[in-house]
């Protein structure tokens, strides 16, 4: 913490963990031998998973679509090389809970034959911006910084919002990771071309490239490349995690804060990672879809740290084998950076669009202490880049008071892990926050489902009530008719002495029947009306009222019917007596 305090901060909080960049920062980008089998997940992005559009046994070519996007926020998945689909099934992936995912398993044929229909855009700088976006969408490009949000969406700002600044994220604030730095050093032209194309797609003029100043070579390379372009500047930033977080980078560079719950474009900024930008260049110039990425393989537990250009679907084990294997003292293998990555359960998990790093960590780097109670030291408040109160959020998450957790801005948490990094009690704070978010999400889904079934039940109830009423009305009418008939026949045969009482009894019966009928009709009409308005409006309150009215009507009806029956019985008895 001593180091961090001396550094100028451009945003609130943040931490400065040991960088360990020296392990791999001098390792040039290298390709790796073609793995025999690739496990390509059909969901490598934020949004809806892809639907597989190939079958087991199909031959596929490099760049061929094997998963079609299912929805707007989605992104296609392409075959990383040519080969045969041997299976499409659930397979382990780098998932925090160790869950599996639907993967297309491809036996590679070694020929690496491209699909020949892939084409770039001729003269893209004069093409329609929308055609560039479509090309990027079809190439399956997503944010390669780790969030994997479909890029074309970020290139289409909502109506009324203008992107005044394209901010290129070359910060790479996660310790260990060096693949973005190597990309900027070695493939500067690709990145610069991507910037031009993206500026055109966004119809924006200004661009700033943010790079932390622990990457002097990358800064120099980029500065040289944009020396005669006044609209593109490189901004060196002091090293501070999580400066590569979209909102933190925006604050560090523009001094503006993205409104809570809003988008970067609300402050006129669009942020893209350098690797994404390079992929955009490939897609627009050559029509090449996103099928590979740079992965930093590092950590004190790996024998030969490297920056590897790996195909999606490459099993982690192949990558580790390519880098000389794991050392004995490896305690943990992490996919992604050490602050936000996920630990792997199985080494068969594949490289995906979000895999920026693969870290073999030893006990020295990933030391573990037992969790102790929170002593409210407040370190987490000082470290939080969003100025949250992790103390209270953790308490409310752990005690499942999710409404309170939300009130303490749970959803503004970016899960950067700075709070847990500084916590002297070793409390897995981010874990609690994820738990709360997932629990709230699950409860909301359940509530929505319950709401839907409640509505359905109401509609059904109303219908049943209607039918019952119709039946009851019919029955009452029949009964009244019968009573009248009986009265007529009785008066024809009755003796004069009994006339008074019989007449009274008959009168009573008829009256009761009439009253019952009238009351029922009125009730039914009211209930029907209420039910109808409930149905038509679909309004919950109205529906509830209608249901209540129907229920009341039913009860009233039952009581009336019983009364009527009693009256009828009495009348009948009187009649019988008189007979």
């Amino acid at each position: 913490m001593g180091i961090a305090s001396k550094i100028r901060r451009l945003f609130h909080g943040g931490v400065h963990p040991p960088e360990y960049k020296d392990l791999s920062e001098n390792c040039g980008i290298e390709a790796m031998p073609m793995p025999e089998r690739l496990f390509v997940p059909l969901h490598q992005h934020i949004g809806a998973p892809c639907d597989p559009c190939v079958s087991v046994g199909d031959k596929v070519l490099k760049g061929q679509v094997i998963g079609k996007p299912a929805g707007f926020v989605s992104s296609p998945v392409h075959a990383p090389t040519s080969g045969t689909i041997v299976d499409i099934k659930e397979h382990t992936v780098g998932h925090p809970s160790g869950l599996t995912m639907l993967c297309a398993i491809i036996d590679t044929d070694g020929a690496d034959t491209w699909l020949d229909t892939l084409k770039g855009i001729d003269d893209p700088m004069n093409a329609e911006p929308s055609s560039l976006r479509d090309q990027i969408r079809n190439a399956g490009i997503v944010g390669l910084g780790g969030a994997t949000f479909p890029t074309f969406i970020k290139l289409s700002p909502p109506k009324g919002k203008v992107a005044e600044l394209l901010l290129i994220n070359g910060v790479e604030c996660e310790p260990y990771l060096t693949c973005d730095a190597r990309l900027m050093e070695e493939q500067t032209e690709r990145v610069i071309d991507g910037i031009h194309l993206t500026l055109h797609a966004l119809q924006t003029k200004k661009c700033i490239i943010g790079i932390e100043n622990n990457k002097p070579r990358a800064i120099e390379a980029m500065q040289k490349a944009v020396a005669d372009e006044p609209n593109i500047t490189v901004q060196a930033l002091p090293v501070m995690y999580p400066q590569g977080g979209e909102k933190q980078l925006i604050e560090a560079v523009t001094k503006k804060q993205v409104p809570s719950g809003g988008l970067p474009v609300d402050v006129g900024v669009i942020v893209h990672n350098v690797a994404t930008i390079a992929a955009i260049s490939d897609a627009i110039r050559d029509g090449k879809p996103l099928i590979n990425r740079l992965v930093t393989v590092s950590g004190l537990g790996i024998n030969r740290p490297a920056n590897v250009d790996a195909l999606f679907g490459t099993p982690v084990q192949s990558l580790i084998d390519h880098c000389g294997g794991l050392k004995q003292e490896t305690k943990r293998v992490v996919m992604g950076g050490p602050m936000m990555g996920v630990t792997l359960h199985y080494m068969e998990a594949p490289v995906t669009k979000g895999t920026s790093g693969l870290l073999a960590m030893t006990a020295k780097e990933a030391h573990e202490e037992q969790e102790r109670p929170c002593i409210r030291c407040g370190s987490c408040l000082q470290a939080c880049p969003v100025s949250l109160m992790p103390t209270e959020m953790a308490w409310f998450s752990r005690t499942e008071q999710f409404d309170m957790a939300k009130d303490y801005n749970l959803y503004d948490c970016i899960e950067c892990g700075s709070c847990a990094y500084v916590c002297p009690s070793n409390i897995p704070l981010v874990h609690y926050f994820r738990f709360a978010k997932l629990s709230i999400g699950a409860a909301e889904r359940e509530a929505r489902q319950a709401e839907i079934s409640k509505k359905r039940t109401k509609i059904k109830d109303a219908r049943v009530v209607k039918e019952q009423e119709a039946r009851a009305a019919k029955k009452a009418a029949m009964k009244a008719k019968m009573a009248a008939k009986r009265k007529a026949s009785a008066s024809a045969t009755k003796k004069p002495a009994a006339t008074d009482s019989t007449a009274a009894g008959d009168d009573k019966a008829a009256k009761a029947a009439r009253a019952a009928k009238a009351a029922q009709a009125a009730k039914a009409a009211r209930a029907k009306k209420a039910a109808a308005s409930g149905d038509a409006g679909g309004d919950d309150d109205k529906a509830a009222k209608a249901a209540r009215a129907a229920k009341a009507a039913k009860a009233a009806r039952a009581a009336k019917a019983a009364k009527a029956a009693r009256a009828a019985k009495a009348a009948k008895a009187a009649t019988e007596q008189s007979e």
Partner: protein
Amino acid sequence: MAQMSLNVISSPHVHGGDSIPKVMKTVIYALMPATALSVVMFGWPALLVILLTTLSCMVTEWVFMKIRNRASTLDDYSAALTGLLLALTLPPHTPWWVCVVGGVFAIAVGKQIYGGLGNNMFNPALIARVFLLISFPVELTTWPIPVDIFGPASYGLYDSFAIIFSGDYGSLSMDAITGATPLGQYRMETGLGKTVQDALYGLYNFDHAQVAGGLVGGSIGETSAALLGLGGIWMIRKKLITWHIPVSMILGCIVPAGLFWLANSTVYPDPIFHLVTGGLVLGAFFMATDMVTSPVTFKGQLIFGFLCGLLTWIIRTWGGYPEGVSFAVVIMNTAVPLIDQYTRPTIYGAVKKTEQ
């Protein structure tokens, strides 16, 4: 598919290395210079008091964890720190049973009945001191005059045991070896209608520098404001605490003291007097900054600290006790949850949101 023998945990996978034992040990180290000076000033009895409270705190903690069927928490050093802090608030010749009762009370009632470390409402050491002060006022207000441990008049080890364990001073008379603290002197004499100057300079030969250096009667840890302040500043430099509570607490006491002194210096002593006497510095750096029982937000810490200081000054000036730090901090401890709730920091992007 073979499961690796790798451990699987949630991110982040690296840690800054801070831990509760480290935090507690750092506080203990910060207290060491002032503690050492006190032992030198008051001799072996003071060391015995420190050992007694510390041990009774640790034993109580151990017993409670056994009863609660939990792993021992002695290794987090929080019980030891509580014992040390308690000792520093006690007179140097506190009888052994008062020390033990205080230590047991601090851990049992001050901490464990709330659920242990992190859950207590009051500063355990201070709530124990308040308890002792109310229950055993005589033992808690007998202030021996400092006797240099290396000097000719010092108590030998045997005498020290006798003093602490049986209250036996041998041939010495109590009046000869005890005296009032500066704060006590000020309250007692001004209460009799004397001016501050007469009360302090006339009878007591009060000297600011001497008091700041620790050469005056008082609690074990109250003696040297200078060394306590140095320890506190070291903790701030180590980023264990921030400046907010100590600075605001000291200002909360000496600003009103200064204003009243300017208005009438014959009735109200000067602000430096308030700063160097009693437990203000100990309280500001080591008691009010107790993490569990102080606010977590900077704004809240400033409010909390200032009110602690203000209450201290009010109690010292008009209260029923000559010294008010422990009461002030314990009273303010109860307000911490409220303060935290109303001083929530403005989150990233929140300002814009309200504008929209």
